[in-house]
Structures are given as C-alpha cells and as structure tokens.
C-alpha cells in the first residue's frame, strides 16, 4: 500500500506542476483582448486539474463533505459571477474577503493541529498568513460595504488615526513574534487574529470613494501574499506560485494607481489614504461660467471632426454608458471621429471604465489610455467630459498650492472646445475647485448625465 501512496503523491505533484504552468500561461494570455479568453480557459483547466489531483491525496478519508462544500461554494459563486457590470468593484472586494477568509481559516486550523511543534520559520510564515488574511478579510468587507453604499462613502478621519492603526499593526506583529519564540502559547493565537481583524476595519474607515482603485489593488496584493504564505505552511509550490502571481499583480496595479494619483507608494502602504485636505475656500472672486443646452451642444458636436469623450465615475453612477453608446453611434454615422480618453483612476477599480464602455458595445480600440491620447487634445475639436472632475483639473499642472498638484491629468483644456456635463457647480469629491469650468472655451451642460446625453442624441437624430 505504501508504494501506492507514493505513486499517488507523484501524480499529484505532476498535476500541480501542469496547473502552475497553465496559471502562468493564463496571465500571459491576458496581455491582449485577442488572447484573453484563451487565458481564462487555461486557468479553468489548471484549476480543475489541481482540484482533481488533490482528491487523490492519500490522507483523505471523507469525500462526502468535500463534495457538499464544493457544491455549496458553486451555489454562492454563480450569482457572484452574474452581477451587473456596475457592481464589479464591490464584487471584487467581496471575493478578496472570501479568499482571505479561506486562507485565515486554513492557517488557524493548521496551527491548532501542529502546536506546540511548530518550527520558528514555519510559525513566522503562519503568522504572516493569518495576519494578512484577517486584515484583508475585514478590510475587503468594509471596502465592499462602502462601494455598495451600505456604509457611508465619506472618509472618516480623526486625530491620531495613523498612530492608532500603526499601534494595532505593531501589536499583532509583537504577538506573532512571541508565538514564533513560544509556539505552544495557543491562548495567544486568537489575539493574533482579532487585532488584525480590527485593524482591517480601521484601515478602511478613512478611505473615500476616489481612493478605492488603489485600495482594492492593495487588498488584492495582500490576499495573494497571504495565500503564498499558506503555500509555505502547507509546503505546496502550486500555492506559492499562485499567491506570488496574485501578490505581484495586486502590487503592480497599486503602483500604477498610486502613480496616477501622484501618491508615493509608502503613503499608500501605510494606509494614509484620504488625507488630502480640501483647499481653503479657493478664489472668492466672482467667476462666470458659460452654459449651453442640449440643442446647442448637439450642433457643436455635429460640426466637429474629432471628438474625445472623457468618462468618469459620474457616468457609471448615472448608468449613462448605453446612452453614451448611442451618442457614439450618432456621431460616427455623421463621420465624426469619436474616441474615449481613459484616466487610470477613473471609476472605482482599475480598468472600471473600460469594462462599462465595453458592456455598452463600444469597440475597445476606441478606448485610449491617458498617455496615448494627451498629445492629441490640441487637434481635438470637442472634449466632452461626462462625470469626471479631478482627472481633468488643470490646477494639477499649474497650481503648486492645489492638493492634487502633480497628479497626471487628461489635458482636456487643450481641446478647441470643452463641454462638461455636470449636475451643478458644486465641487467634486475632494472639494477642489476646477478652473477648467471657467475657461472661455468651456461650456457647462448642467443636468443628469444620462438624460443630457439622451437630449443630445435626440437633437442629433431629430435634425439629421
């Protein structure tokens, strides 16, 4: 029988090796939309192989509950995979929480099975697994709650917030260090879970909606690293590889997001989000804006050769992406060249705008990244801003006193005419005034994004 066991173990290892290769290929094929679906297939095959291989594990005596749990998980997973595209950010945050939940549970179970015979290095990675796991669990639940608007989206800050948070983190590391020296101290283990659970909640409290893309990426990275740590505990190379891939993916995305907001990476890592203070009531002098009706806007758009649409979170909130598609169709039919300028932090998670516009059937080769389209704004007849604010604020280039000074922006102010669809003149989330609105070439289109775009489409088709 022992030879059979050894044989099974070898088969499992080979299956895991194949699964690891498929996971790497899966991410490689994500590099372009043309091969991305093949990437998903590779990942799925790798996953099925790995799960099937695991069932050959010689120590498994109880298959009934494995099947029950797999079926229950599938039952929860299907509705989570079918959510509406506007709900993708909160779904993603929720799945980070589920992943972290799984890792924390397995880490805890492994500790109580092994204590007090846990080698020091093993205890160190196990501590890292459960600390990262539990703070990612509550942090992601909080983020999902804010995105779903169950919790207030407004950042909540208080004096000494960073001190409290850093002390909590230090406390959990101290408990971990004690456990590394004394792995038999099982009564301390719950403390090492409870403190990071609290830290996860407090970490997200000061975060506002505009910081969500960075935070989601960071939680993604934490979830990956905790899974990699679990791979060390279980001596599973497959898990180490998957965790390292997920961890580096989250890290790269957080770096891209923090660069796009001109935050240093350490600023992001230490949870000091949402600390941007609104500038003291800027410019008291009376400033005038020019506004226009849907009729006038339609006339200007129809006369243009090149139009760039700048979508922001406001477009998603107003569910205006399908109307924007109608506008795109109406203008394209008249021979107008329409493209979309996508700022990296537009929306509530990395790539959010692209998915919403793709859902509305706008071809992806019309969606242009910031660095590629900024040079084209001087040759653009009309820049139409829909529900975006801070990412178009020219003060980020010129006003050293502005809280967003240095943040890379879309240079819409260089277009010949700028049109901004906005509910009112009230400043955006960060409370920063936008000088773009007072330019002579800017027309403010006051109203709800969806109904205003609808109005323009109506005028374009009516007088066609």
């Amino acid at each position, binding site marked *: 029988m022992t030879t059979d066991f050894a044989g099974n173990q070898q088969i499992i290892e080979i299956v895991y090796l194949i699964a690891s290769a498929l996971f790497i290929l899966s*991410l490689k094929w994500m*590099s372009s*939309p043309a091969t*991305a*679906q093949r*990437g*998903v297939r590779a990942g799925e095959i790798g*996953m099925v192989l790995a799960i099937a291989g695991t*069932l050959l594990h010689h120590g*498994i*005596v109880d*298959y009934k*509950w*494995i099947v029950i*749990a*797999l079926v229950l*998980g*599938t039952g*929860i*997973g*299907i*509705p989570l*995979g*079918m*959510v509406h595209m506007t709900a*993708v950010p909160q779904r*993603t945050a929720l*799945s980070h929480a*589920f*992943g972290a*939940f*799984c*890792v924390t*549970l*397995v880490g805890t179970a*492994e500790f109580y099975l092994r204590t007090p015979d846990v*080698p020091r290095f093993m205890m160190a990675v196990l501590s890292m697994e459960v600390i990262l796991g539990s703070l990612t669990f509550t942090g992601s639940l909080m983020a999902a709650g804010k995105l779903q608007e169950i919790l207030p989206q407004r950042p909540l800050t208080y004096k000494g917030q960073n001190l409290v948070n850093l002390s909590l983190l230090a406390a959990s590391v101290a408990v971990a260090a004690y456990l590394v020296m004394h792995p038999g101290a099982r009564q301390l283990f719950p403390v090492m879970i409870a403190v990071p659970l609290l830290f996860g909640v407090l970490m997200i409290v000061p975060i506002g909606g505009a910081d969500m893309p960075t935070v989601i*990426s960071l939680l993604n990275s934490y979830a990956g690293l905790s*899974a990699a740590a*679990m791979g*060390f505990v279980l*001596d*599973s*190379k497959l898990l*180490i590889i*998957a965790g*390292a*891939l*997920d961890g580096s*993916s989250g890290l790269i995305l957080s770096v*891209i997001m923090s660069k796009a907001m001109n935050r240093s990476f350490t600023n992001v890592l230490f949870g000091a989000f949402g600390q941007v203070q609104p500038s003291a009531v800027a410019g008291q002098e009376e400033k005038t804006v020019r506004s226009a009706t849907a009729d006038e806007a339609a006339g200007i758009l129809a006369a243009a050769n090149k139009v760039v649409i700048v979508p922001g979170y406001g477009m998603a909130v107003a569910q205006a992406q399908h109307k924007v598609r109608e506008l795109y169709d109406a203008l394209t039919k008249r021979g107008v060249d329409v493209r979309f300028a996508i700022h990296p932090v537009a929306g509530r*998670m990395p*790539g959010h705008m*692209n*998915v919403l516009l*793709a859902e509305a*059937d706008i071809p*992806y*080769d019309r969606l242009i*990244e910031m660095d590629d389209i900024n040079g084209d704004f001087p040759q653009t007849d009309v820049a139409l801003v829909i529900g975006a604010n801070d990412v178009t604020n020219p003060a980020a280039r010129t006003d050293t006193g502005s809280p967003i000074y240095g943040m890379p922006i879309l240079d819409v102010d260089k277009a010949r005419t700028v049109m901004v669809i906005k509910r009112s003149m009230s400043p955006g989330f960060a409370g920063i005034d936008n000088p773009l609105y007072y330019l002579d070439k800017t027309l403010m289109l006051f109203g709800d994004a969806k109904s205003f775009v609808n109005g323009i489409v109506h005028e374009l088709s009516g007088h066609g």
Partner: protein
Amino acid sequence: MSSALINGLFVFMLAAFIGFEVIRRVSPLLHTPLMSLTNALDAIAVVGAIVLVGEHKSTLSFVFGVLAVIAATSNVVGGFLITDRMLRMFKSSRPTKP
C-alpha cells in the same frame, strides 16, 4: 531552516519575477478582468482546505476546512464566470471576419 522552506523561497522568488514581467504587459484595458482572474487563480487555496476536510483530523480543522472550501470554491466559480463574461464584451471595431 529546512530544505523544503529554502525550496519554497526559491519558487516564490521566481514566481514573483514571472508575475511582474507577465502582468506588466497586460493592457490597462483589461485591468478589471485581470483582477477577477487572479482572484479566481488565488482561490487555488481550496486544495489546502480540501485536504483539511478530507483528513478530518479534528472537529475544528474539519469545520474550518468546510467553510474554507465553500469560500474558495465560490471565488473559483464566480471569478472565472465574471472574467469570461467581461471578456466577451470587449469587441474590436475592425471586424474579425474576412
């Protein structure tokens, strides 16, 4: 440190480098599906949970294992499903048919 841990560190280091190189090349267009895909792949943690359930070494490890398998499986199924749905939406304006 045992040789298994040293091996693990080597694997982690290499996988992290591959991850950086591969993911750096992912188009920003696909950052949302990338995140849901890595989320599904990360749920490979389900294999550790399956062993906990199957071995049934203690009540605690069994109960935690069952919960962990449920959580991870929902990520696997939901993650692949939504990634696939999103990618189907990305269409080029250049027709693929000749």
